[in-house]
């Protein structure tokens, strides 16, 4: 019983220390705000997901065409809009990438 209580007590103390660790490590941080993606970052993510979806759809279309599931006529009809979608997403991401590079260059 005593051993059990001692082990239990030690466990509790260790748990409390571990839970309090973020406050013990940083007693007075410069910022305690939990960051979240801003509007710009959310938009970037949307565009990246859109780009990936479009590229994946193109890959699937190519594969379906090669394996005979999509006819030549369907392929020709579908590939254009998909390429445009991928290109639009890539283009929309481009200025942001440029801006980021610009910020990095100016910070040097």
């Amino acid at each position, binding site marked *: 019983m005593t051993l*059990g209580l001692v082990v239990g007590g030690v466990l509790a103390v260790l748990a409390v220390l571990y839970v309090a660790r973020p406050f013990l490590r940083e007693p007075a941080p410069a910022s305690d705000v939990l960051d979240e993606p801003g509007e710009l970052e959310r938009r970037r993510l949307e565009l990246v997901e859109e780009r990936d979806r479009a590229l994946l759809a193109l890959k699937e279309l190519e594969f379906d065409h090669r394996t005979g599931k999509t006819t030549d006529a369907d392929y020709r009809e579908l590939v254009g809009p998909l390429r445009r979608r991928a290109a639009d997403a890539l283009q929309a991401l481009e200025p942001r990438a440029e801006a980021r590079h610009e910020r990095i260059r100016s910070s040097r």
Partner: protein
Amino acid sequence: MAGLGRAALLLSLGLVAYALVAGSYAAWRRRRRLALSAQNALLASFVSTLVAAAVLWSALARRDFSFVYVSEHINRSLPLGYALSAFWGGQEGSLLLWLMILSGYAALAVWLNRRTRDLIAWVVPVLAGVAFFFAFMLCFVSSPFKTAPAPADGAGMVPSLQNPYMLAHPPLLYLGYVGLTIPFAFAMGALLSRRTDERWIVATRRWTLAAWTFLGVGQLLGAHWAYVEIGWGGYYAWDPVENAAFMPWLAATAFLHSVMIQEKRGMLKLWNMILVALAFCLSIFGTFLTRSGVINSIHSFSQSPLGGWFLGFIVLVTAFSVTLIYVRLPLLRARTKLESLVSREAAFLYNNLLLVAFCLTILWGVVYPLLTEALRGETRSVSKPYYNFFLHSFGLPLLLLMGIGPLVAWRRASLRSLGRMFVLPLAAAVVTGVALIALGFDSSIPGLLAYTFSAFVAASIALEFWRGTRATGSLVRLVARNRRRYGGYLVHAAVLLFAIGVAGSSAYQTVRERGLQRGQSMTVAGYTLTYEQLAARQEANALATRATIDVSRGGSHVTTLYPGKNDYPVAPGGPTTSNEVSIYHDPRNLGDVFLIADQIDKGGTLYLKALVKPLVNLIWAAGFLFVFGSLVAMWPDAVEQRRLAERYAAGAVAA
């Protein structure tokens, strides 16, 4: 030691309570250190729960009968393996297993996704909320650490649980049930944090697949346990508790398919949220059915005060999920629409509708007797014909869709390409159907349809591999580059084997029953069974009586089988007798000769029940392919990992 177990559980309760309250506040007020602290509390709760579990396992291993749980579930003569498996043989231990797996999963999931702080900040309190319920139950409603003066020996274990399958079946099932908490927590976290992009799906993709695989394998092992242990000649009886594991598996199957549509097309966001919540609620409902004693079945061997608590929790979780989904509806609107009703995504949608409809009809079959008893005081039961009707109505179209889906192109398919893709599978199906009718297998229409559709699906899967290999130049390259797709096809092939096994062993089985004196014979499906002798021997904890049956075919000896009974003098509820079946696996038809000694008279007359179940072994073989296919689908893809790392690296919010 019981004190340590109680203290560890109280500590777990305190930690998850802190993670729930502090985590919610931190996520709401955007407090970074507090969110980290809540996260640490959740991680620490795993360690304290492990300590509690170690205390219980140690008490079982030492046969410490001062623990009420130990004295009620094992006795001294029980082999150590079974004694340790009593951890999940009773209600309190099962709840502790739930909490242990949940806290372990939660710790791992939070740690793996620790960089996605904004999402994790909300995932932590959701996980902690679920863990809090189980920790609370263990501390105040159903403690495994109750003590009493130790009796000289324990009550022993239910004989049917003394089977090697019981070492693996319940833990695997729980790994599945509990695993569904992770996608649920991430989905709710995504809604709470308004991050309804694909991050939560990427984070939980493998968790869902793993939980689904565990649930599937757990059910298959349970079916095999029932087959070899219960002694009624079947593997699935539509028992409410069996259904309880099947329903979340069906919902998770639907989710695994529909989530691909969200990833590929940005559609079905709302539907996926509903499916994740449904699968989780059904997993809690499954635990409720198993542990509350609300339904009288072989699994509900314990009556308990848990029912009301569980019901309250299910209502709370359902209300929480529905409200949250409703509040966040504007974020869940799809930006794209289905382009054609003849496309791969449309096939996925039909599959989803059938799976969910099947799931809900099973749910109604389980709930209806409970409702009639609660509201009218009438005892009703929903039996096999009800379930079989819906199995045929939804299962057969699902089987067919499994073959149609892969043949149809994404976005839309023209009639010309459909004709070209369908010709070979259709030919295979027609040839199979005609051959079966010609051979006289048209006695069962569902069986005939199942085999005809199976031929279609088999041809479709084989063609997919062949065309893909031809297009990429190598089978290995094909699978390596498209692991999820071809892993999925392997799982489909496993489901196909399963369906063939079920159809063969149920629609075309032969059953004979007869009383035999020594030296007498009976015939069944071409086998001659001769009763030779009866013998009894004392085993570790039972008296085993076995009849010796010679099995021959066409005058040639095939094998000798030993069906009989075990008498357990020590078992919960008093001495018990169990049926011990004896099975011959016939490699010629992949089926079994299954013998049950229904009754053995004192004079030595044996009432023998013999079942010949063609193709039944395909069901168990399907399990191996199912696991292999799931592993292929789950295996990390380096290219995709890099792409996702790049996608979220800039998006991840650093601490």
